[in-house]
């Protein structure tokens, strides 16, 4: 037997499926008999498995950025009608630099992080963005994180957020954290360290659970429309006692007058683009004006610590001053987020993407919305956990305008 370079190349072609059928079957017979070749094939397969597992899914390029790249490419290639063929004159660069400096200063004044300059400002870039951590409640073993991103925001690259209080592990340093990290609101049960345990752990059958996340300035489960919330809980049928209790709590809050505004009777969402609107609060809005409960239906509620470690990324709204800020600013200040994980169908008006991976405890939802100016913006939530099994469905509702998602 010749186990040299040529044989290795053949084995590689074999594992890659690049051998003709006849050669493949002949080699398969050989591999079945030869432990050296079988070992080589196994090693190749292991390497490929590792690599395939590490395959990154690129973030979705927002339509606004994609368009800006197109415009620039056309201009630089000299294909843009009326555009410069090769570069800009010095004066134009100077003006651009001045505008960038001014915009950066304005952004700093507003206390927001300035986005990178990516071409002409689009109306889509005024929508708020946020990254929010999330955890399960009443989950003794489950940790989850949720990354919310509004793709039309430049300069808000979502960063991986691992569950923070893994047993015995120090938290990674937050280099850019501008403010001290708040202490956790409640002690959490330690999660299983990654990679621990040699065998398969038995999994318990668990009922569907809520996963609730909060954005700063928001109240737990406050939504724009209680009717929408009601539909959600009914249609999604996450029929735990907690769901009922939560609805009751909202109702009781309304009765006690804790809600800042009652929802309209029909619960129908107003047109988000109607009449421009510098809304302080969304019309027909509903917001819990008090602190959330510590428990629901007797189960302790594990609140997410608002913006732990990611204070520099909170609620970015990069709207140029005076330009269509009305839709964005109130949302950025009072954005509310709810992530629910369930196996039930999504309610109308919510676009949900089921995870392509059927792995445990994974769900991703993406919500797309036309911004009324020809663009599309989207928000994505990813929920993972180590414990719960099966493909899941995450319903995402972000911001004061979320009923239109």
């Amino acid at each position: 037997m010749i186990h040299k370079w040529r044989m290795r190349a053949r084995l590689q072609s074999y594992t890659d499926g690049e051998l003709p059928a006849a050669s493949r079957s002949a080699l398969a017979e050989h591999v079945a008999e030869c432990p050296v070749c079988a070992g080589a094939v196994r090693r190749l397969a292991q390497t490929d498995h590792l690599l395939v597992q590490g395959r990154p899914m690129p973030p979705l390029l927002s339509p606004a950025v994609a368009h800006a790249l197109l415009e620039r490419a056309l201009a630089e290639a000299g294909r843009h009608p009326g555009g410069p063929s090769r570069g800009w004159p010095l004066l134009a660069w100077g003006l651009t630099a001045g505008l960038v400096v001014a915009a950066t200063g304005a952004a700093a004044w507003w206390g927001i992080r300035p986005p990178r300059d990516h071409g002409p400002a689009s109306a889509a870039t005024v929508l708020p963005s946020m990254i929010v951590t999330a955890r399960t409640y009443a989950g003794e073993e489950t940790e989850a994180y949720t990354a919310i991103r509004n793709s039309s925001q430049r300069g808000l690259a979502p960063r991986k957020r691992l569950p923070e209080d893994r047993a015995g592990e120090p938290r990674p340093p937050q280099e850019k954290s501008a403010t001290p990290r708040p202490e956790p609101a409640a002690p959490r049960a330690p999660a299983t360290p990654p990679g621990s345990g040699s065998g398969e752990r038995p999994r318990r059958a668990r009922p569907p659970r809520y996963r609730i996340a909060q954005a700063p300035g928001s109240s737990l489960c406050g939504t724009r429309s209680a009717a929408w919330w009601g539909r959600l809980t009914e249609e999604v049928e996450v029929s735990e006692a907690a769901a009922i209790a939560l609805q009751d709590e909202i109702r009781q809050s309304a009765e006690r007058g804790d809600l800042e505004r009652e929802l309209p009777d029909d619960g129908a969402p107003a047109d988000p683009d109607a009449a421009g609107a510098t809304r302080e609060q969304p019309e027909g809005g509903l917001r819990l004006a008090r602190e959330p409960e510590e428990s629901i239906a007797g189960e302790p509620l594990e609140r997410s610590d608002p913006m732990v470690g990611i204070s520099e990324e909170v609620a970015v709204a990069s709207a140029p001053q005076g330009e269509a800020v009305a839709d964005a600013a109130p949302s950025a200040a009072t954005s509310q987020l709810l992530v629910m994980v369930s196996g039930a169908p999504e309610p109308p008006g919510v676009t949900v993407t089921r995870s392509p991976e059927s792995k445990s405890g994974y769900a991703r939802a993406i919500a797309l919305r036309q911004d009324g100016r020809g663009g599309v913006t989207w928000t994505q939530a990813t929920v993972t956990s180590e414990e719960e099994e099966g493909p899941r469905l995450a319903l995402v509702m972000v911001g004061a305008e979320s009923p239109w998602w």
Partner: protein
Amino acid sequence: VSFLETTYSQALGRGLSCSSPFDQAGATDEQAWLAAARQGEPWALERFYHGYQPQVYALCYRLLGRAEDAEDAVQATFVRAFRALPRFRGDSAPRTWLYRIATNEALGLLRRRKPLPEWTEEIPGAPDGAGAVVERLAVRAALARLSPEHRAVLVLRLWEELSYGEIAAVLGISLSAVKMRLNRAREQFRRQYEDGA
């Protein structure tokens, strides 16, 4: 069906104005708009861009590991493509042709950029718990320590799922060179991964 395809198709299905390479109508008349793009028709160039930009962006992101660099590479790729389209004879598929340009751009960036950064962004596709995430990061770190050529051939084969022939066309090398490079790249990767583990 990839996540992006699902997302785009949902957007299209709901009547949103979202250009997509997965638009069925767009796929059928590709030859027509490709010919118009060669003539420099702005609408066709735009169609050409929207048709291939997601794939090119994904490739650049996987080669470069950073969204910002990937965007730069996409822009540079389409600048070159728009200029070269009149000379594109169609000997290879447009995607392969674009991949070749994009890979060259990305390799140029990779060679100029040392050391290679590890992925700094969220892992949007994180399908399971933190253990898998850590392992995935280790894989990417090992990949980032490879030479740009070895990294490229692995990305094209295992992440972009190109055939040997397509890889040869994209990298401009022979089939036997693809096999040899792929073999060495796998070995190098394995070594780096085990060293880092």
